């Protein structure tokens, strides 16, 4: 295994940003480091520098503020999976965190590493996209907020520059009329992603009959997480009936698994699972609001 690199352990965020800036493009920031060793053993090229963020300031936290959930990028997935408040008001993220690997991996794997690692992105990325999350990143010069919608472009380039470090992930909790869910089809190994990941967040009208807001996202065969914009548009403002749910599921599957692409093999499963996911969300919300 290659070991000819420098292991850097910054003691605060400013030092971490400085080290990253000085060695931009040659440095791999790590948190839990669960993927690093596996990749090298499989012949991956190690970077010149590894930057261990474990002691670089307080990046390991989770709390619910007055309006939003705030998660530190170094919070472990096992911690998220065991947080009752998250399970109640951001169910999809709790489900995704609990679905990752065995416990011994979840105890080390962090939210930041899961979402921001090199492709394939981990299971929580697709959920944060559905939850309309924002990531706060910091460099030596500035600090800015990024929407998950703009984090990855079509070519798979990340909007986070090599000298930036993620410092916060934030998103709104669900209210009574909103719920979210996550579905994983197949399983992931250390280096092979699960074939299909789906996530949805649905808000119904106070009567529980009209779709007020729907965000659908998917990750197919380890590609970048993507929204289902066409399917979302179909649902917008519509009275929720079985035929509308079917139409949304079909549209989502068509844009996720186009014909004449390798993803097409997943199309039927995506239709079925999306329909089941939406029906589950609708029924959970209706029970809560007594519709």
């Amino acid at each position, binding site marked *: 295994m290659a070991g000819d690199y420098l*292991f850097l352990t910054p003691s605060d965020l400013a030092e971490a940003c400085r080290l990253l800036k000085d060695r931009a493009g040659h440095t791999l920031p790590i948190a839990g480091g669960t993927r690093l*060793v596996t990749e090298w053993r499989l012949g991956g090229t190690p970077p010149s520098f590894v930057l261990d963020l474990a002691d670089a300031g307080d990046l390991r936290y989770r709390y619910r503020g007055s309006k939003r959930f705030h998660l530190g990028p170094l919070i472990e997935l096992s911690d998220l999976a065991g947080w009752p408040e998250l399970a109640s008001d951001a169910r999809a993220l709790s489900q995704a965190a609990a679905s990752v690997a*065995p416990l011994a991996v979840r105890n*080390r794997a962090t939210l930041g590493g899961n979402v921001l690692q090199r492709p394939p992105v981990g299971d929580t990325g697709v959920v944060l996209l559905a939850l309309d999350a924002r990531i706060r990143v910091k460099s030596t010069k500035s600090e800015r907020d990024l929407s998950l919608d703009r984090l990855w472009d079509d070519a798979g380039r990340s909007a986070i520059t090599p000298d930036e470090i993620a410092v916060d992930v934030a998103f709104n909790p669900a209210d009574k009329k909103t719920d979210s869910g996550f579905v994983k089809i197949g399983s992931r190994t250390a280096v092979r992603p699960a074939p299909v990941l789906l996530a949805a967040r649905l808000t119904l009208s106070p009567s529980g009959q009209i779709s007020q807001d729907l965000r659908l996202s998917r990750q197919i065969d380890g590609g970048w997480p993507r929204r289902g914009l066409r399917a979302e548009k179909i649902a917008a403002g519509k009275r929720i009936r079985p035929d509308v749910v079917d139409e949304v599921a079909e549209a989502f599957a068509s844009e996720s698994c186009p014909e004449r692409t390798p993803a097409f093999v997943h199309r039927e499963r995506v239709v079925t699972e999306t329909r089941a996911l939406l029906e589950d969300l609708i029924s959970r919300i209706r029970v809560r609001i007594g519709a």
Partner: protein
Amino acid sequence: MPKEHLLRLRLDGERVTSRVTPATTLSDVVSERSARPVPEECDDGSCGRCLVSLEGNLVHACILLALQADGANVVTGDGVPERGIGARMRRVLASGENPCGKCASSLVLKAADGARRRLTAEDARALFFENPCGCGTAERVWPELAALLEARRLANAAVERVKAKKGKKKRKFHHGGTESTEEAPEPTKEEDGETEQDGETEQDGKTEQDDEEESGTE
């Protein structure tokens, strides 16, 4: 030549100092310094045989850089405290036939972790069988672990009830704005749901204190 670093950690209660390169894994260090080498089969954490407890959390030593464990407390299956469910599981494993024995250490650690976190039988089972055990050892010892965890659960429930009862007795009573320190009337067994059998379980089973000792894996 990779730069060497000085690594200091506590392994099964002993202070360990070692010179490591950035690419040295925790399992390399544990294998070199503990009584028996860490079994490694998969190189990606999926077999789970390299399980160790790092600061109280189960991790796969084969995919963790040793430098990430600098200053930490590391415990293997041999190092779980002598009292507690982990140690009892170790004795169970030692007493029977384990065709390959490679999963023994990880099963001991999982048993201790399940007890410490007070997992339900269902969650403990999920943890116990999370990694495949091809030799049948996990299946052989699971009923014993399930029984130990159930005894622990009953014991803890009994302790909680006794605590609640004591708290009730000491509670101050308010009578129309005046405060009295009169003791609460003794609840009947039917009222607080306690049975003679529960009382016995409390004495025979292990208590919260044992739980804390179990967390010596931390």
